[in-house]
């Protein structure tokens, strides 16, 4: 029937209805929005659990146990202990798996932060403060960028240096320039965030233009 399978038609009508329910929040909180919100919370929690089971619990625990591999008992017991958090009286039991997660998470941060987020970033900011271009006179653009990179990072770090009051020549002006550099960086991030938020709305309008409306025309308008 004009290229749309029935479950696609039903699906698109439901999607259209739910999209309008969520948009109704703009008119103020109302039953349609509350309905859509609660469906969303229920469906997303269900989705995460199903994908978590098939993706991780089954291969990490269920299958090794079927193959009589006792090591899988450890994550199983730690996992079940996590469920004790539901009842306040036995919630102390859930601390054991929680501590394993938090301890390992802390270990991961120590191991994988130093190199990629500090050393390589500082190395990339080390730039010569004067650059010649091919014809051996000053390449102004790169020199200025290098100055911004080196002294921008330096003053930015001074702004985040807390054990000395931000007064006086070095720390006073340093922190002052530092906050200005941060403000320009945050300004750029503001511009990009506006771009992101608007494209979310464009995405929903594209849904109506490219998926929902053609289906309605195909089925109701007789094509």
């Amino acid at each position: 029937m004009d290229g749309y399978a029935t479950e696609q038609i039903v699906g698109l009508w439901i999607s259209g209805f739910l999209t309008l329910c969520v948009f109704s929040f703009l008119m103020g909180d109302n039953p349609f929005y509350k309905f859509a919100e609660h469906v969303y919370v229920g469906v997303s929690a269900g989705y995460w659990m199903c994908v978590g089971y098939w993706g991780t619990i089954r291969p990490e625990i269920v299958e090794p146990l079927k193959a009589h591999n006792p090591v899988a008992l450890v994550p199983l017991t730690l996992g079940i202990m996590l469920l004790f958090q539901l009842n306040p009286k036995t919630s102390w039991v859930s601390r054991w798996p929680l501590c394993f997660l938090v301890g390992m998470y802390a270990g991961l941060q120590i191991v994988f932060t130093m190199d990629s987020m500090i050393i390589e970033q500082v190395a990339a900011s080390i730039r010569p403060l004067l650059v010649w271009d091919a014809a051996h006179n000053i390449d102004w653009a790169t020199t200025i960028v290098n100055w911004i990179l080196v002294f921008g990072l330096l003053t930015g770090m001074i702004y985040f240096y807390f054990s000395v009051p931000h007064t006086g020549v070095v720390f006073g002006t340093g922190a002052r320039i530092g906050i200005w550099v941060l403000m320009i960086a945050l300004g750029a991030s503001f511009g990009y965030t506006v771009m992101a938020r608007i494209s979310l709305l464009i995405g929903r309008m594209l849904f109506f233009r490219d998926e929902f409306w053609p289906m309605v025309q195909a089925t109701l308008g007789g094509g």
Partner: protein
Amino acid sequence: MLDKLANLDRRIIYLIVLISVIVPLLNPMGLKIEPSESVAASFQTYEDLPEGALVLMSIDYGPSTAVELEPMALAACDQLLRHNQKVAFMALYPEGQALTNRLIGRLKELYPDKKYGIDYVNLGYKAGNEAVPLKMGLDFRGQFPTDTRDKPLSEIPMLRSVTQLKQFALVATYSAGFPGALEHIRITASEYGMPLVVGTTAVQTPQYFPYYDSGQVKGLIGGLRGAAEYEILTGFKGAAVGGMEAQSIAHFTIAGLIILSNILTFLQFLRKEEQ
């Protein structure tokens, strides 16, 4: 009059934004888009891949950011399949697995002759955030024993000989947040030395620019704008280019709102001075 305009009702502003997005979508102006350097670098990284290369694509975004990231992933997959290279999908984001299904559905339409298991495969989602790239680098087959159809890697033609992460020519992550690009940068790229291309939302682009500047990331594609540039570079007819006009008008509207509001505040300030 001044005060009434200053605290305009929210709903009127919502209406203005809605109109500024809908009108350009209904009649596109066809403005030219200039690809930027970091997007051209990502395109080139894919282009330089050898014939029949194997790429690991990590789909780390959810439905809320699919509008920005799906066009990028689709254009890249189109580029790979056109050069009959192979792509294995994985996901650090739970919703990534279902969105990979959607990508595969589109690829089936575009390339009916390409087969699941020979040209593309879905290894699915693994919980555990950073622990996934950590284990994947130590023992790839241990982290992904089967694909989402429970077929062991040894029975999948394109992955039969693959046991280590190093056997992939390139890793690409299309990431909306945590877990995603930062985990791949810190572990997959920095730790295991894999070449990495990052596609991300416009919100996170400024945060990842330093990693492109330091060379830890081979290419960076940012937001719907980056997706539109990538579509132009690969010549893929996607959704992103169409959205850019609406993006332009909406940006001008919001910039106008900020200016108007500051002018109004200034006028109110002047009037208070006179009293």
